[in-house]
């Protein structure tokens, strides 16, 4: 069988196809069909010739096979230093082999490569800092994923994820109507406590356009409400676009570059339409990477910049605290041992280590912040990055990968982990559920809301009190 009904080389483009694939519980039939999916060798080799240029080719060729990258990879360490987890081995035995064989590889090879690409590397880019040649396995694994995706060898959930972006321009089936309704609903819900609070949709020329992660409107709309309240307190002139509000990209995890382009162009179109002074994304790490760091290149912008200055939520919070737009009540600062999870996506890919520390200096009473070791640029991935969190097939490997972060957290003795990145947040939630180490974890927004001083004029007037029971 060259191609299956569920498992094939065609990207999902319609809602029907998406629903059909979703109905295949846990991808049972999908993975069954994958066993006999044919490799289009000519196409594979043609793609490699077109896209495997200087940087990647040289990386593959000059790797000194020195093994310095081994210890840099948390997956190598956490898997009892299995030689198969050495970054260089992972790439040489997959991409390296495909290139050496000029694309002449079979089904079993591709399935193995899929397992390596999605369960042995979270594209955290840490190894790039430890290799004498500056070889970045995270980048190369991303490239390998693209090749695998184009041949249909991609985990079921990520095929769906990329399909979601193609169909809804969101990682979940949140339509424009759903989104706008959620904004209205959240604004309404806050009226009693926050008179005058708005979530303005499609306001032109605002100072800030806010974008988020589709999971927020879908699963925890409070996050959107919290963002609105904080902007309200800070007195920001802000808006959200009705279209182009979703900033994440599961297609980036899937290696579906075409879907990445479609997704990011949708956000950029909103920027062009509403002309905000700048854009602020939510706390999600991979969303930031997709839309701000890699996105400009997918969208064909040679200067590597989005159409308007686009910053991460952490940057806005630090600025708001610094400028006094948000003021923290000193009595409410955190006075328990707390630690901070650096998200690879905005530490090694956007340089926000110190910015995050600046925020913590406002939120945490001196002496209560206990840093993980290693941290900042040298931090380890939470264990669930690069799509790892969402792939059912690789759940056991993912759970094992969580041990690194678990032990790092345990070593700090902290009871609370501040984890702005959604993905890290998920991983930490899962590790608590899996290993019961009795910790709490939190995004920045709820913490800020607990501690921020609310200006008098924004507080609800008490006149109507007594009307209700």
């Amino acid at each position, binding site marked *: 069988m060259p191609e299956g009904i569920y498992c094939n080389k065609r990207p999902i483009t319609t809602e029907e196809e998406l629903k059909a694939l979703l109905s295949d519980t846990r991808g049972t039939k999908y993975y069954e069909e994958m066993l006999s999916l044919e490799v289009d060798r000519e196409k594979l080799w043609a793609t490699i010739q077109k896209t495997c240029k200087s940087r990647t080719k040289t990386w593959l060729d000059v790797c000194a096979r020195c093994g310095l990258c081994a210890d840099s990879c948390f997956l190598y360490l956490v898997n009892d230093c299995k030689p198969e987890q050495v970054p260089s081995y992972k790439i040489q035995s997959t991409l390296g082999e495909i290139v050496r064989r000029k694309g002449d590889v079979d089904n079993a090879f591709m399935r193995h490569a899929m397992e390596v690409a999605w369960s042995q590397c979270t594209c955290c880019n840490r190894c790039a800092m430890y290799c004498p040649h500056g070889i970045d396995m995270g980048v190369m694994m991303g490239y390998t994923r693209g090749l695998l995706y184009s041949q249909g060898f991609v985990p079921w959930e990520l095929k769906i994820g990329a399909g979601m972006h193609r169909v809804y321009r969101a990682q979940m089936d949140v339509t424009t109507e759903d989104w706008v309704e959620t904004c209205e609903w959240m604004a309404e819900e806050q009226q009693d406590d926050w008179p005058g609070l708005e979530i303005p949709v499609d306001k032109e020329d605002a100072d800030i356009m806010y974008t988020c992660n589709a999971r927020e409107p879908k699963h925890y709309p409070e996050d959107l409400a919290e963002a609105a309240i904080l902007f309200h307190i800070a007195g920001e002139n802000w808006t959200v676009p009705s279209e182009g509000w979703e900033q994440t990209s599961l297609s980036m995890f899937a290696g579906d570059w075409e879907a990445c382009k479609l997704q990011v162009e949708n956000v950029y179109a909103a920027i062009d339409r509403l002309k905000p002074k700048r854009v602020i994304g939510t706390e999600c790490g991979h969303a930031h990477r997709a839309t701000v760091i890699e996105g400009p290149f997918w969208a064909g912008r040679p200067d590597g910049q989005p159409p308007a200055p686009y910053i991460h939520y952490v940057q806005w919070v630090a600025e708001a605290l610094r400028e006094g737009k948000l003021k923290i009540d000193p009595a409410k600062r955190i006075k328990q041992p707390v630690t901070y999870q650096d998200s690879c996506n905005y530490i090694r890919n956007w340089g926000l280590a110190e910015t995050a520390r600046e925020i913590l200096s406002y939120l945490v009473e001196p002496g209560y912040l206990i840093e993980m070791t290693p941290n900042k*640029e040298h931090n380890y991935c939470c264990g669930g990055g690069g799509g790892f969190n969402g792939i059912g097939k690789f759940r056991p490997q993912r759970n094992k990968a969580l041990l690194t972060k678990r032990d790092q957290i345990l070593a700090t003795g902290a009871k609370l982990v501040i984890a702005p990145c959604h993905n890290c947040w998920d991983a930490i939630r899962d590790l608590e559920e899996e290993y019961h180490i009795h910790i709490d974890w939190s995004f920045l927004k709820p913490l800020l809301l607990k501690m921020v001083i609310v200006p008098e004029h924004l507080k609800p007037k008490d006149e109507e009190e007594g009307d209700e029971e």
Partner: protein
Amino acid sequence: MYAFLTGPMLWLSFAICILGCAWRAYMYVKGLSWQLDRVAYGHNTDLAVKGALKSIFHWLIPFASCSWRAKPVFATAFFLLHIGLVIVPIFLYAHVMIVAERFGVSWPTMPDGLADILTILAILAGLFILLRRFGLSEVRIITTRQDLGIMAISLAPLVTGFVAAHQSGDGNGWLLAHIITGEIWLIAVPFTKLSHAVLFFCSRAQIGIDFGTKRGGQRGSGIVW
């Protein structure tokens, strides 16, 4: 024979080495693609230059990168081997004299005693690196025959040169062997992994530009190597 090896063949070897390396560097830069690499080449030039230099510098200077510091024994062996292979031949009295005789240009030389010590250390370092390949499972799994071949090609001129320099009387055989292995080494540079002699600088500069202009460089933090 001797005349040929020290004459035309020597020039040919140098020419192949230098032109080949230049070609590899040229092809590397030519093959860079802002869209495929997702790096904005040609923008933020000062950050790019800063990032590239920082990236090269931290790895060229012993123990200047976190990775070197994390592996002090390997780093020491690495630098000793490279000093023996690159620095010693350039400043060796015997080599400088040959150039001076033929071209009338010369530069400072290093004492022979120091050259001897550095050569021995380089050979030992090479052997250590070789043993490490077999001893550590994380290195064994990625080792290929090419890696062993490269080490042999690199150590041969050091060993033969050392013996030739210390032979009293008829040193011709060893000297000849030294010249031949040296020429093999020169010719191998552009065609094998030894091309890292230039590609190291290309690759390091590229990732330095990546981190320096895109991944944090614009916020002043770049990356600490």
